[in-house]
């Protein structure tokens, strides 16, 4: 990874391509050493891509609006989990069931996005760490909702979801009625097309222009008459809504839900994927998200088994995967801060 993130001295022109190119090269080298057959790799990659791309798309708006990498996307993921749990409890299924779950996810995500945005407005300059910790905090609220209120207060009634005592949800659930609601790759591509159109349209609206303006320079934007705080708040609401919908799409394909822990790693993986596509803390596009998701999962699918094979110990795979994720994010942050420091001196 390190080579891909070397600070650019004379490579400024090629820089946007640098990270994706290096990641692609590493993946190809790893693939040539590994034992995974090509057809298998393509099938896995297609699956990982269609599952994850929507969560990565959810991260673009906050970057554009100057809030940085949105680690609070886990709040959206939790809202999505609540939505799919409700859908499962009601026995919704098929296309209409999926639409219902997505609608619910949008509503819950919007609701959850408001406090997130309000909090980040109070933590200017520290949005990323604040969003990260808020994800942990929200996890406590989520546990309270699903462990203690689900049943007596929240109207869950399916015996398959509830614990035998009637209070609290089981910790692992098979999503039987919501499972595999999107019929195939063509449907994912259709959804992806819709999501991309939606985002492109959003960025052309007045609100989208305001996000750009606030992201470029908050003070200038304020002078130009933009309600900065409201614009940032809406950026978080939209991101959380997209995150909630993204988690619904992820889970219906995954078909199993670890009720209390599923969201834990969502933020890290999505952020790493966005960065691999060539995005930075201050710049992200739809292309970065789509390319990044494909490349990130290509890297994980090839380099992780190759490392394990090299070391001769398959137990390292899990840690290797995490190390890749944390290094990608860590190095990107270092480069961002480094560059910001150089510009200001």
């Amino acid at each position: 990874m390190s080579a891909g993130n070397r600070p650019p001295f004379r490579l400024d022109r090629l820089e946007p391509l640098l990270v994706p190119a290096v990641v692609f090269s590493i993946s190809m080298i790893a693939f040539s050493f590994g034992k995974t057959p090509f057809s298998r790799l393509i099938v896995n990659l297609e699956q990982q891509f269609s599952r994850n791309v929507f969560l990565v798309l959810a991260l673009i708006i906050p970057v554009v609006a100057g809030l940085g990498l949105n680690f609070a996307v886990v709040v959206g993921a939790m809202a999505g989990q609540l939505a799919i749990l409700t859908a499962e409890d009601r026995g919704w299924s098929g296309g209409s069931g999926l639409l219902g779950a997505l609608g619910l996810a949008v509503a819950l995500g919007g609701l959850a996005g408001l406090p997130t945005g309000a909090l980040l407005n109070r933590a200017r300059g520290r949005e990323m760490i604040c969003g990260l910790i808020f994800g942990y905090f929200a996890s406590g609220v989520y546990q309270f909702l699903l462990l203690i209120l689900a049943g007596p207060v929240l109207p869950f009634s399916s015996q398959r979801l509830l614990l035998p005592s009637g209070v609290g949800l089981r910790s692992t659930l098979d999503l039987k009625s919501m499972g595999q609601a999107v019929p195939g790759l063509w449907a994912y591509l259709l959804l992806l097309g819709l999501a991309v159109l939606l985002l492109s349209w959003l960025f052309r609206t007045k609100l989208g222009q305001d996000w750009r303006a606030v992201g470029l320079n908050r003070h200038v934007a304020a002078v130009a008459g933009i309600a900065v705080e409201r614009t940032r708040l809406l950026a978080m609401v939209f991101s959380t809504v997209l995150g909630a919908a993204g988690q619904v799409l992820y889970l219906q394909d995954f078909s199993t839900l670890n009720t209390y822990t599923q969201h834990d790693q969502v933020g890290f993986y999505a952020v790493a994927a966005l960065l691999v596509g060539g995005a930075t803390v201050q710049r992200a596009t739809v292309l970065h998200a789509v390319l990044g998701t494909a490349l990130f999962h290509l890297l994980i699918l090839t380099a992780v088994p190759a490392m394990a094979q090299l070391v001769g110990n398959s137990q390292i795979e899990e840690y290797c995967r995490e190390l890749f994720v944390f290094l990608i994010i860590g190095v990107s942050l270092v480069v961002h801060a480094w560059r910001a420091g150089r510009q200001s001196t």
Partner: protein
Amino acid sequence: MRMPLQVPQIILAALIAAFWGLAAASPNLDFRQLAGDGLLRIGMNGIFVLALVPPLRAGLGINFGLPLGFIAGLAGVVTAMELRQRGWSAGGWPEFTLAAALAVTAGAALGYGYARLLERVQGQELMVGFYVGLAAVAAMSIVWLIAPYRSPELIYPIGGQGLKQTIPLEGHFEKILDHWGWTGWPEGEPLAPGAARAPAEARPLVPAGLLGCWLAAGLALAGFLRTRAGIALSMAGGNPRFAHIAGAGVPPMRRLAVVLSTALAAFGMVVFVQSLGLVQLYKAPLGNTLPAVAAILIGGATLKRATVLQALVGAIFFQLLLVVSPPVINDLVQRYSAGRESLRALENLPDILRVLILNGFILYALTRGGPEEER
């Protein structure tokens, strides 16, 4: 030293007082044992909280990179255990000293590298520190799996390679600090009313050595902060420009603060492990960072100001809450649920409460430091 009493602290103090009052009033809970647990937990986690003081004072903010020190501490412990098995060290105090020395050395070395990194990322110290911690733990997990440790009690029985997830410290330096100066229970006194406890679990009510070690570390740190270097360190955080004019270089002082913090975290992990009686490797050390951060903030520290006293008081407050809330809530549930299975769900409440209070205090501090100038 001023202790600003703010609303969150007052609410928390009331909560703690209420819990301990309930514990004292309950017929099912052994108050003495709970108090002993509280003291033990304070001593075990106290040094982690102290480790946060130097970077806060030097203007680097919260050191979310504490796990870097933790893995140094764990490496010190397992290396000392391996060396003992190979006959290079005696058990007990020599082994503990060896583990601590290795841990502090490794911690200081890693801390130096980490400090050099932080120098280049001004304004993003918190986030970079957080990811340094995460990446270090993941990288070290790979090292644990392939490092050439050979002692059979340390490694997986199959394959001849890879340190175990959990390694008992029995026969090494288990509880050597906790039991320091303790000669056993007086004849005839029950260890706990009603319950016969295993002798291995027997422990003094007051872990004098452990608490002494924590307080000594605190005093040493406070003493250091009063020396020339210590004052220069605090000046680097309080007023960098003034520090520069006064001839105290800001970068070396920040470096020193990070090295101190990482070394203290490493030493704290050795102390923690001896108390726990277990070495927990892989992802386990990640769980100790945020509680330490919450503790110092509960003690009244802010992103810009922290004292040793705040670290000591914060550790006491936070651990007193963590120790007492699960048994008290469970006891209340059991007494008043009258066999209703549905109320058992409330037994999850202490854990949820811990998550909310811990992260709530961190968020409170992060949103109150005033807007940081964006770079």
